[in-house]
Each structure stands twice: as C-alpha cells, then as structure tokens.
C-alpha cells in the first residue's frame, strides 16, 4: 500500500480563528434579531432560522411541518459550536453541522417526518445544551443514527491495536526469513519469502498515514523520487520486490532488505508505546480499500511480483479486522450492514478465484470480464464503507 497524504479529520483551527472573529461577534450578538439577514436562498425550500447559543439553543421554532426543509443555524454565542438535530428521547441524530463559528449562520437541510426533534448545541469549550422539543405529526423522515462517541471507540481501538501488534511481530518474523534467503544468496527462496511478508504487512491495513512516516520506509513506491526505482531513497518491500523481479544480485539486495527489517522492527517496537487515536478506526474501515482501488487495482504498486490481487485480498482481510471491532456499534446504526456483509463475501469469492496455490493471477492477465467484476465489487464496497466512516466519526454528546 501507498502512503498518500494526511488523514482527513477536520482540522481544529478554531483557536486561531476565534480571535479573528471576535470583532464581528460583538456586533452580531448586539444586533436585534429582526435585523438578522438570511442568506439568499432561492432553493424553494422552507427556511427556519434557529438560534445557537448556550442560553437559547434551538430557539426559533415552536412548531414544524414534515418534509424537506432548511434550518439556518445562527450562532449567537462567542465560540464555535457543533449542532445536532436529534430525537431527544433516543438521541438519534438526523442532521448535523460541525464547527459553526461565532456570528456565522449555516444551513442544515433535513427531511422531517413523524417524531420529536430538538436541537443540541455542543460548544467547543462547554457542556452540551438541548433546546426545546418540537413534534411533527406525520411523514417519513430522513435516515438517522445515534452518534458514536470517543468513549464508545476506545475498547475496540485498544483491541484492534493489540491485534496489529501481533501482526507486526509476524511481519518482523517473515521479513527476517526474507533477509536470510537474500543473505544466503537464495534468490528463488527470497522471491518465495517476499510475498508472505508483504501480505502480512498489507493485512494490517496501513492505509493513508495509519503508520505515519514508517510506512514510507516500509511500503513506499518510487513516486516523487528523482531517480525513480534507481533512487537511493527508494526503500522497503517494493524496493526489494523490484530487485528480486528484475535480476538484481543477492549482494545488491542485502542493504535494502536489511533496511526493511530495521524499519519493520522499529515500527513493531514503537507501536507498543503508541496509542492509536480511536477516531481512526472508522476511517480505516473505509480507507484500506480506497487505497486498494487506487494503488492495487491500477497496478501502480506492482514492481514485478504481479501480486496486486493478493494484496487486495490481504487488504480485504484487514478491512474485516477493523469491521469486526466496530460491528457492535454498527448493528444498531448502519441499516446497510447486511448488504455490506454480502458484498464483503462476494469480494472475497471474487479475489479467491484468482489464487492458484501459492500463486496469484497477475492483474494484466485478467480477462476484461474478470477485471470488470473485480473493479465492480470493490467499487461497490468502498461506497458502502464510506458510511461506516461517517457513522463512526466520534461525536460529543454531552
């Protein structure tokens, strides 16, 4: 897998922004309510302006009608805040707007149906406040889900972290075996040993910055290196792969494999001291296979072994490992979970069909129909997994 940029958690830059916004805030708070200027809409939808502040959270509506509509959430407090529209009894959330700056009005488009609703204001630096409840008598509402809190995610994250630790030990063991083969000048044995070591690492789901800088040393490509595959900075599994499948001598590969072993050993040792951010769990469930689609199904990460489909299969295992830890949270929140399970099985069947003993079909040997099946099933999976990430994005509820 390829390291591709930073994680995508929204950056909390509010500290810096608050000072900037303070001036406008004073003006906004003092303005009489009638002078509030609604953003020009022209969308043909019913608009209701709702106040967002610790003292008047959710004020602005006494009654509501069913259907698609817009709430213009106007932050009259002096700090940024999150706003949820929830069922106050079940705490199921039907809409949210993150990080509304002081003095700012932002729209929330939702479909209301039969049920009770209240706005919950969650200021960045104070306790949550729930506004008045409003009942809607009829209609079918849009989909909702109970928020997942950071607290909910800590036990699965710890469990997952332990599993990764075990996997990293196995990566070290298998990489040592690869190194021994190269040190003995046994290139055939090294080619045979390379794949299990690499797949064990891929199974850990090192997608998009999960292992930080270490991943670039362990699993980077030649992207961005001036000398390409001959660049001194090209390191890790793919560097060794390039040599093993391009006729390089065992002696010339001693350095790269030794560096690789050092990197994976270093990651294993540091992993024990690292505490994984629980917020990463949902993202990993989604992004491991995004990475597969981007780098494996395109062949971008093939340096001669032709093992992209094996890697995709290992990535699927890695996704299942994350999902198994999130499952208790998802069963009550993700209506599409049975469909996701079905498609995971289908992807597994599809990929297993390309395995022949220890060997795998090369990507460029797939027929057009096989290629389309593979792209289709994995493309479908990432669409479904995107919902896991949004549902498991930790939210404050108190």
């Amino acid at each position, binding site marked *: 897998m390829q390291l591709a940029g930073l994680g995508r958690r929204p950056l909390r830059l509010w500290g810096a922004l608050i000072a900037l916004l303070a001036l406008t805030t004073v003006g906004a708070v003092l303005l009489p309510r009638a002078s509030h200027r609604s953003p020009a809409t022209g969308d043909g939808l019913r608009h209701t302006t709702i106040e967002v502040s610790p003292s008047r959270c959710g004020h602005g509506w006494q009654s509501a009608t069913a259907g698609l509509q817009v709430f213009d959430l106007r932050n009259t407090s002096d700090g940024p805040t999150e706003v949820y529209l929830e069922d106050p009894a079940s705490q199921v959330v039907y809409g949210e707007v993150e990080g509304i700056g002081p003095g700012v009005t932002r729209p929330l488009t939702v479909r209301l149906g039969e049920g009770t609703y209240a706005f919950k204001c969650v200021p960045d630096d104070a306790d949550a406040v729930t506004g008045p409840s409003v009942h809607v008598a009829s209609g079918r509402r849009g989909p909702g*889900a109970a*928020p997942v809190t950071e607290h909910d995610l800590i036990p699965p994250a710890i469990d997952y972290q332990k599993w990764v630790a075990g996997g990293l030990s196995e990566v070290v063991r298998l990489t040592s075996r690869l190194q021994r083969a190269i040190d003995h000048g046994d290139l055939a044995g090294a080619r045979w040993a390379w794949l299990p070591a690499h797949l064990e690492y891929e199974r850990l789901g090192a997608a998009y910055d999960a292992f930080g800088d270490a991943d670039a040393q362990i699993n980077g490509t030649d992207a961005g290196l001036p000398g390409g595959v001959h660049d001194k900075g090209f390191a890790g599994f793919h560097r060794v792969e390039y040599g093993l499948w391009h006729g390089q001598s065992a002696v010339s590969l001693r350095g790269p494999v030794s560096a690789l072993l050092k990197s994976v050993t270093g990651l294993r040792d540091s992993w024990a001291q690292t505490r994984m951010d629980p917020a990463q769990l949902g993202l990993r469930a989604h992004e491991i296979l995004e990475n597969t689609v981007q780098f494996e199904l395109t062949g971008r990460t093939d340096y001669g072994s032709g093992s992209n489909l094996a890697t995709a299969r290992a990535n699927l295992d890695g996704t299942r490992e994350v999902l198994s830890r999130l499952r208790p949270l998802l069963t009550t929140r993700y209506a*599409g979970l049975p469909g996701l399970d079905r498609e995971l099985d289908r992807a597994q069947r599809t990929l297993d069909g390309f395995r022949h003993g220890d060997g795998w079909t090369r990507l460029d040997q797939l027929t057009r129909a096989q290629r389309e099946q593979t792209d*289709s099933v994995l493309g479908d999976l990432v669409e479904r997994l995107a919902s896991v990430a949004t549902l498991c994005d930790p939210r404050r509820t108190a």
Partner: protein
Amino acid sequence: MNGTERGEGVGRRGFLRGAALAGAGLATGGAAAPGTTTAAPAAVAPFHGAHQASVLAPPRRTCVFVSLDVTTENRAELTDLLRTLTDRARFLTSGGTPSPIGITGPPADSGILGEQLPSGQLAVTVGVGTALFDDRFGLAARRPRRLTTMPAFPDDDLQSDWCHGDLSLQLHADDPDTALHALRDIARHTRGGMQVRWRLDGFTSPPRPSGTPRNLMGFKDGTANPDTTSGREMDRLVWVGKGMGEPDWALGGSYQVVRLIRMLVEFWDRVSLGEQERMFGRARSSGAPLDGVSEHDTPNYADDPKGDVIPLDAHIRRANPRTAVTADQRLLRRAYNYDRGMDANGNLDMGLLFCCYQQDLARQFETVQHRLAGEPLTDYITPFGGGYFFALPGVRDATDWYGRALLG
C-alpha cells in the same frame, strides 16, 4: 417537469429502492422562493412516455456516451440495477434537492451543480446490446429479433476495447457539468452492477453561421434527417411497432447504432475545396446540394444521371438516393463531434460520434452502410469503435422502469 408546478414542500420521496445509498432520493423544489421568478425552461426531453423522447430530441451542446458491461450475478440483480438506473435518471432529469442523509453517510450528491439540481436540462437514453441476451440472465429468447453484434464493415479498423457492450447510456445536456454530474451520480449508485466498458464525450457546434451544425470536416451534418415532428414518419422509420415480428416488450423502442469515426483532419485540410465538396455532394459554405442554392434544397438526381454535378459516389447521393425504393431505408442521424486529444504521432484525434436510430438495422443502417462502402470519403476517416444497441421503450410513469417489460 417544472418545479413551480409542485406544491409547497416536497412532492415525492424515496425513489431509490435497494441501492447502496439508501435514503437518497428526489425532492422537487416546491414553490419558487420569493424573488425567483425565472420560469424553468422547457425540458430537453420529457422523461416519461411511450418512447424515450431523448431519441428524437435535437442534439444538445454536449453528450457523454458510455457503453457498460453488467456485472450482476443474476437476473434479480439486473432488475435492481435497471430500477436504480431509472430512479437516478428520473431524479437527474427532474431536478430538485437531493435528500439529505444526515450522519449516515457522505453527502448524497457530488455538489458540482450546487445544492439544487436544475430541472429539465438533462436527457438520458438507455439501450441494451446483444451481449445482454447471452446465457447470464436467461434473456436469449427475448432478444430483439434484429439485434446483432455490429460487424466490421469494409473500411473499418475496429478496436475491441472500443466496441459493443451490454448497455448503452447517453447523457445529453447543454453544459458539460450537467452531463458529468449525471455520469458521476449514476456510476456511484450502480458500481456493484455495471462498469464502463468505453466512453466517448461529444459536442454539437453552434450553427455557423446558420442552419445545421457542422462536423469537424467543416460540413453541415444531418441536413436531410426525417421529420421528427411527424408521428407517422417516426413510426415508419424509427420506432419498433406491431407486426414486425418483434417481441411485445420491445414495442416503442428503436435500434441504436453508434459508430466512433476518427477523422484524419490534417489530411482533410490538405484537400482542395472542390474535391471536398464533390466527396460530400454539398457546398461547404451553405450546406446546399451542389445542384442547389440553399441548405434544404432537395437534390435532383434524376436530372443528373451521370453525376456531372453531384458525383454518383458523393456521400449524400449514396447515403440517400431519394428514390421511392430507398425511402424506407432512411434513418434518424443523431451525431456529435468528438475531440480526445492527440494521437501517438502528433495528429489531432477528433471525429464523429455517429449515432443513428432506426426500426430495422438491416433494412436501414446496414443497407446504407454497404452502399457507402468505398466512397471517396473513406480515405479520410477511420471507424474504430461503436456497437449496435436497442434503445428501450420509454419509462411510462413514476412506477415504470427501464426494461420492466423485458425483465418483468
């Protein structure tokens, strides 16, 4: 469909059945907000009807044409796929506000058209290829009788990566973002059920200076089309009707031929005007037949039996000899220009995304194509892809879906 025809709030909801993004669906805009009095323009083509109105509608400024292969495992899933495709096409052509899904997923829409989708600015044409009638879905016995695999014609140089497919999907709009938005939306909702086999985008030039738009050889293209406002003419030439031996489900559909034709424009630009005009049989400036004055003059071949004015092998003369015998061989041209960059030796890769509709492939397109074989124009073009498809009968109403009669 015009948003102002709907009541306050929301007209409909939850079209999407069984798709990955459950809950996404259509909400029409309701009454126009105060201050927005602009009436919605007439729809590019009404979505509901006995026929796909997009077949007859004049070409828009842009189109996306994709051939797709179905990747579903069985007939029930194929049905789900076509229902989802119908739901998306209905929503995308009607416009409105995509239904928000709260925290249960990423945004329901890509947002590239803003938060409100315009109404009536997109047309969709859906067809099925003969490949769909193989043994995968048990449809072999239901194949439209005249639907075959497009053969290689004498002057073709077909590339298999650019030919055929289980389905055809054409998205017509006046703005590229409208068509691309639709492509993205449809692909997102159908990833598990179909994959794009090949794709070519087209465009229609504005009239230069008037009349029928020009192709990239500089000639007006499509002047002699049948009259699409005549129901009788369309029933005679375009739509599959009763008594033709076609399966009942196919009534109201039409055979769609797509031909991807590279034009060797550098070579063409090195040919004298007189030779160019004799190859087409029309004047480049006006589009008039060489024996006429203005574009829509009818060529009089009877008075020119030896081809002294319009050569016997001129394109328009071979394509449509305008005799009683050949009258039922006419077809409805719906061609677009295409431009896809450069080729390996630095020449422009552009040409014609030729598309035409007819009720009988052999009687119409193939007969004309055989008559055109060896015409002088063939030295300046290379047909490299395309396929035969059957444009499905129309989606009749809000409960109907593409292929219901075929699969139901």
